[in-house]
């Protein structure tokens, strides 16, 4: 077991897959000589050369589309979009092509492409640079959407995503790049897509989150544990395929469910999970399913306003306590 950063775990996964499969190549803005805006591709251009680590002009729609075409012809492109906010200018290619081609071709042609991109808020980067849009993509059949929240998952899931025969939107998080964690030494370590993980056991309430919000959830669980309340934290890891069964198993045990996410709650991950939990756990629930998300506004800039809009620990904790009070535990 080695300690390294989320960023380094991603870099190693890319390195391993570039070495393993000559069809794998990287493509995106600033990812070569400059090593990517967030340095995830550090050293790879030097090691694999400009054809395996392709730098592009600032043409997101163009190179996402080119990635899809190359994938249809059997290559395995890993396309980097500088941040998830910029994928909006390439939406048509992602939704109308990447996500639909296998089905529209009657299953005969696939798009084995990964789009890697970081999202998240909290650094006063304002409305157009602080978004968590993954739920939009997860709402579309045909594209897998994953959002690892740990170093080991970042490594193991990126390798699996690259080997997957379908398109995968791989959501990273700006706040997590410098987070450290342990990673198994096994070079063949992979993590399947579509499996949630119980990252903290508890008996009083199930708190479900993905990406950076998992860390917030764990901090809330620690705080409340001091008052004798034990929260079970489920890291969703994948939004599509969605592992509702692992969530349901936890809720059957705790009888209460709270979903936290950094994106907007309305039509969000929590909305989908709430529907699934109500169906799967109707008789086990002691309280309605609750959710916490970012305020339903474009993210403001000034610190006091930004804090008011973020789904901070204090807001998650208040929602958890509200749920517990509602069902008789103070």
């Amino acid at each position, binding site marked *: 077991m080695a300690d390294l950063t989320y960023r380094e775990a991603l870099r190693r996964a890319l390195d391993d897959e570039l070495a393993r499969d000559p069809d794998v190549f990287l493509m995106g803005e600033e990812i070569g000589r400059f090593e990517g805006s967030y340095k995830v591709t550090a050293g790879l251009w030097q090691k694999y050369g400009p054809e395996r680590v392709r730098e592009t002009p*600032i043409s997101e729609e163009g190179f996402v589309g080119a990635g899809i075409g190359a994938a249809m012809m059997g290559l395995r492109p890993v396309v980097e979009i500088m941040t998830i*906010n910029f994928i909006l200018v390439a939406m048509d290619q992602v939704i109308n092509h990447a996500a639909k081609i296998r089905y529209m071709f009657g299953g005969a042609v696939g798009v084995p492409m990964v789009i890697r991109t970081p999202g998240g808020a909290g650094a006063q980067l304002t409305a*157009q*640079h602080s978004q968590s849009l993954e739920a939009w993509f997860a709402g579309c059949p045909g594209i897998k959407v994953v959002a690892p929240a740990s170093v080991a998952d970042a490594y193991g899931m990126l390798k699996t995503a690259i080997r997957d025969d379908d398109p995968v939107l791989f959501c990273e998080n700006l706040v997590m790049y410098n987070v450290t964690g342990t990673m198994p030494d096994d070079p063949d370590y992979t993590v399947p897509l579509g499996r949630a993980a119980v990252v903290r056991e508890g008996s009083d309430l199930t708190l479900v989150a993905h990406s950076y919000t998992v860390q917030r959830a764990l901090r809330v669980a620690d705080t409340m544990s001091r008052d004798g309340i034990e929260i079970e934290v489920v890291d969703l890891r994948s939004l599509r395929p969605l592992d509702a069964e692992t969530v349901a198993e936890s809720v059957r045990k705790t009888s209460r469910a709270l979903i936290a996410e950094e994106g907007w709650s309305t039509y969000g991950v929590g909305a989908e999970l709430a529907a699934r939990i109500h169906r799967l756990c109707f008789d086990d629930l002691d309280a309605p399913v609750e959710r916490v998300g970012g*305020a339903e506004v474009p993210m403001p800039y*000034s610190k006091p306003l*930004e804090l008011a809009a973020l789904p901070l620990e204090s807001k998650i904790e208040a929602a958890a306590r509200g749920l517990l009070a509602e069902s008789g535990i103070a």
Partner: protein
Amino acid sequence: MSTPARNISAVPEPAPAPRISDEEALNLYYWMVLTRATEERALNLYRQGKLPGSYYTGRGQEAISVGMAAPLRRGADGDWLSPWIRDLGSYLVHGVPVWRMFAQFMGKAGSTTRGKDGNLHIGGYEWNIPCQVSHMADMIPLTVGAALAYKQRGEDRVAVTSFGDGATSRGDFHEGLNIAAVLEVPAVFVAENNRWAYTTPISKQTKVTDLYKKALGYGIPAIEVDGNDVLAVYSAMSEAVAHCRAGRGPRFIECKTYRMAGHAAHDKYESYMPMELLAEWSDKDPLKRLEQALREERTIDEAKLEGIRTKVKDEVHEAVERADDDGFADPSEAHLGVFAEADTDA
């Protein structure tokens, strides 16, 4: 009946440059000095950790930001101006008070957006400056739309936007220019070719490194000017604006310049930008050049220039103090303003 041939895609005949009066030239000097002083002060504040987010400067590109804004009409009924992040000077010339620029950087209540948006995402109806969409080239179609509104209402107003060389790789650049040409709207597009986009040199951005040629391809009269000569930019812009006001369709001006620092304040540009080129362009500094022209060609007194510099120093000092003293908007305001009707569920 045949319509007279009209070669709209030709490079326009260089109009005999109207003489720029000493008074106008000194006015440009004032704005250039103010722009640089404001940016330098803001950069210091950023380095001291007093400005959040990220910080971009337009050092070395002030001739463009000032020269492009100076010929425009100001105010809510004036011309639309949507400047690129390098163009702090455009905001000043188009009417944004200096202290509100600092308040904007600091996210204070007196910012042009009441703290809702940051850095050069400055905007306000009172100046006819739209808040920027930071996705490159996105402001081009919006500018076409503003120009269309003026045309449709029969007003002799003009809409102007600026952008970098990197933006010309985006679809919105191409769609926006094409629509502007087809609809014959009164819009002026100002390309700032500083030869870099982040760490990507222009040679890797496009095979057509003379950006004005792209506009010619869409049927928009286009020229290139020395982007480090404010008098040249001002003349070209004045001519283009007059052409638009006369209802003769869009114009495109490419300003050739150089990015004198990293992409943003945190960017370690020494690792990728050739230092010899920087030194070479440093000699072409637009402020130095204007000073030289004022002193040598127009024999303007050094004392007069010094007076302008002193005035600017005081102005910037006062502006920072005022912004510092300003408070933040109440956190509850985070939830306001998504829709026109305050009580609509966001």
